């Protein structure tokens, strides 16, 4: 066995660069704008610029082939960048496009790859994910958005919901139905990568309870050339699933929670409540110690997935366990932290009395969707039981 950090050298390099480049104001800005995966109404110029800077360093797409602007290195190295950013409350803001890109590398045409991947790697292009529909959430196979083949193109009509980033993205990563009669239903879906400027597409905002934005995306007889199809017709469901294993590692990061936790501990060490040092309250001490262990658990679950991916082993059960665990832990952490800190925990960053960068307050709403979006905890448990331990289907 070996639990050492095989990526320590690169981690140092990234950490040093970030500590130099990421100013305190910028860190606050990231904390306010992007933590807990929220997406603001609009990106600030500072954050957009810094994302391009990360891209210029070659740190977006480190694990992609060089001919598409990638770094030709390992997934583990790319994740070092994600982790070190997360440890500073920051992130690669066009990270949704990493999902699309990972799949394009397997199924995309040369033209699609050249058109998209180098821009994503430069940190200047986002691809919005268009899976969810009003009647197809967890049940992705039930997607109804209709794509009808006609000559050299498809005509697409229907509505997607919760397509985060669609207001900023250049492309729409769209799963649509090409065979309404297909049984089982997931066999009738096809994947497209659509230019969001195509006539007939409207993007409307949905305001979310964490003061962020996601979108409704409406297609009204939109003509999409066949060259926009990713993978084979009616194979879209399989195409979508292809990069899921690694993708879940890019979304939730244990180092984000470790950093948040360290800030909480730091604050509690200095705080007094009801006339005594908060840190001397046994309830506080035990709660913090408990999360110290829990975050360490999430870190190990995370590293286990990387280790398995490196050996090209199946990760479906392990990555599901990780996703379920970290999202449930994150919710619990911010709720317990609020109780430990008390009223000041309710203050947002902009408040003059805010503590822990306002993150405890933000996390109350901000973590709610983590346990159902991108694979609900219930589904994760189904997968662990079914795929991991062979329990039978109903």
């Amino acid at each position: 066995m070996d639990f050492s950090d095989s990526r320590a050298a690169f981690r140092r390099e990234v950490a040093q660069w970030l500590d130099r480049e990421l100013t305190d104001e910028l860190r606050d800005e990231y904390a306010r704008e992007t933590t807990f995966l929220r997406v603001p109404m609009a990106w600030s110029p500072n954050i957009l610029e810094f994302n391009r800077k990360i891209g210029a360093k070659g740190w977006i797409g480190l694990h992609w082939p060089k001919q598409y602007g990638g770094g030709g290195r390992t997934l583990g190295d790319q994740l070092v960048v994600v982790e070190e950013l997360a440890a500073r409350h920051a992130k690669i803001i066009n990270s949704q496009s990493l999902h699309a890109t990972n799949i394009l590398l397997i199924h995309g045409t040369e033209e699609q790859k050249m058109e998209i991947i180098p821009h994503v790697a430069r940190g200047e292009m986002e691809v919005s994910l268009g899976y969810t529909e009003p009647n197809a959430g967890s049940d992705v196979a039930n997607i109804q958005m209709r794509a009808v083949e006609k000559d050299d193109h498809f005509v697409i009509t229907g509505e997607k919901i919760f397509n985060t980033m669609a207001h900023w993205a250049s492309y729409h990563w769209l799963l649509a139905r090409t065979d309404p009669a297909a049984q089982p239903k997931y066999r009738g879906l096809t994947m497209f990568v659509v230019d969001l400027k195509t006539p007939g597409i409207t993007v409307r905002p949905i305001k979310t309870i964490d003061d962020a934005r996601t979108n409704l995306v409406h297609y009204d007889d939109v003509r999409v050339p066949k060259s926009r199809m990713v993978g084979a017709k009616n194979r879209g469901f399989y195409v979508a699933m292809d990069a899921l294993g690694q993708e879940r590692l890019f979304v939730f990061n244990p180092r984000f929670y470790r950093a948040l936790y360290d800030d909480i501990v730091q604050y509690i060490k200095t705080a007094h409540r009801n006339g005594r040092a908060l840190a001397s309250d046994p309830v506080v001490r035990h709660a913090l110690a408990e999360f110290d262990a829990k975050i360490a658990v999430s870190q190990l679950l995370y590293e286990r997935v990387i280790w398995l991916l490196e050996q090209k082993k199946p990760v479906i059960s392990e990555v599901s366990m990780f996703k379920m665990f970290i999202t449930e832990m994150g919710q619990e952490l911010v709720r317990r932290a609020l109780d430990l800190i008390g009223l000041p925990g309710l203050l947002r960053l902009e408040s003059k009395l805010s503590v822990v960068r306002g993150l405890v307050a933000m996390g109350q709403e901000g973590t709610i969707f983590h346990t159902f979006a991108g694979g609900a905890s219930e589904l994760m448990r189904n997968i662990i039981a079914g795929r991991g331990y062979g329990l039978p289907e109903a």
Partner: protein
Amino acid sequence: MDLNLSESQTILRGAAREFLASECPPSLVRQMETDPKGLPPEVWRRIAQMGWPGIVVPEQYGGHEGSFLDLLVLLDEIGRAALPGPFFSTAVLAGLTILEGGSAEQKLSLLPRLCQGELFASLALSEPGLDFGLDGLTTAAATSGKGYAITGTKVFVPDAHLAEVLLCVARAGRRKDGVGVFLVKTANPGVSLAPLETNLRDKQFEVIFDGVEVGAAEVLGGKSGARAWLGPALGKAMLAKCAEMVGAGRRALELAVEYAKVRVQFGKPIGTLQAVKHHCANLATCIETAELMTYRAGWLVEQGLPWRRDALRAKAWTNEACKRAAALAHQVHGGMGFTREYDLYLYTGRMTAFAQMYGGTRWCLDQLADEMGLVREA
């Protein structure tokens, strides 16, 4: 990261599993609940022949000089088989304590016999009203003639009935926090044992030391400075217990999953029902995470890296994970798991009881908070 066992560890695990499956089936574990010794001497003899008692003892003292992770791998299997008997008290508690604190001479006189399976020994640490640890001991060693006289009451001394020697942890020296570890022969006048009955039917004892005389040479590693090395010895024992819990947990998980596949209600296996699936997924998460935490801390020990904080995390986590896992495994089994004729209780009983031994959660979290620099209540 690399979660694979080494080749020799894989062999060790395979051999242990095979041996325990044939020599320590659940029927034997049950039978030993009422056996006065706790393990058939023949089984112990064979365990000794395989070199298990001395698995981490250096060769010069007759051991196998294995690594700390080897010990964890072995205890994982021991937990999985719910092996009763003196392995933990002799090889882990006494063995590690002697290794950490004994002088070369003491090691030479004790360890070869311990490795051979000839010397049974145990640790007398806990006292009524005290947690696991070295603070607040009332048992004391007073200077007396050429040696010491030990007086006090110890509880939860495992396998004291077999032990030839007890390592008695007592207050010693002039400093208030001085602690020494004294080698006390159970045959000495003034030592009396009384069994303590537990649900687990493990062999726990109250041991009263009533002015027991020990010679000046019968102190491990200096008369009052044991704190520095006994802490690490106990920390390692704590992790060893984690490994045993993980092994028992694995077995409980397997039983639950297997049962969910074959038990039919309402015309279909209960494992098709999502509520039951989720119990199993939660159970699996408990055990897999406890395993990761335990082996990671063990790896730190083996590497000689700082490990105390991770050991505390591991025990706190493993305790809670195992308690939850035990409850879930029972929930999946319904009434069948509640019978003594079914094996599940052998594992869940250990998972629950061991969570209290060598660091209960409250104690671990308290220590962890200290490690993190959170202030203690005045």
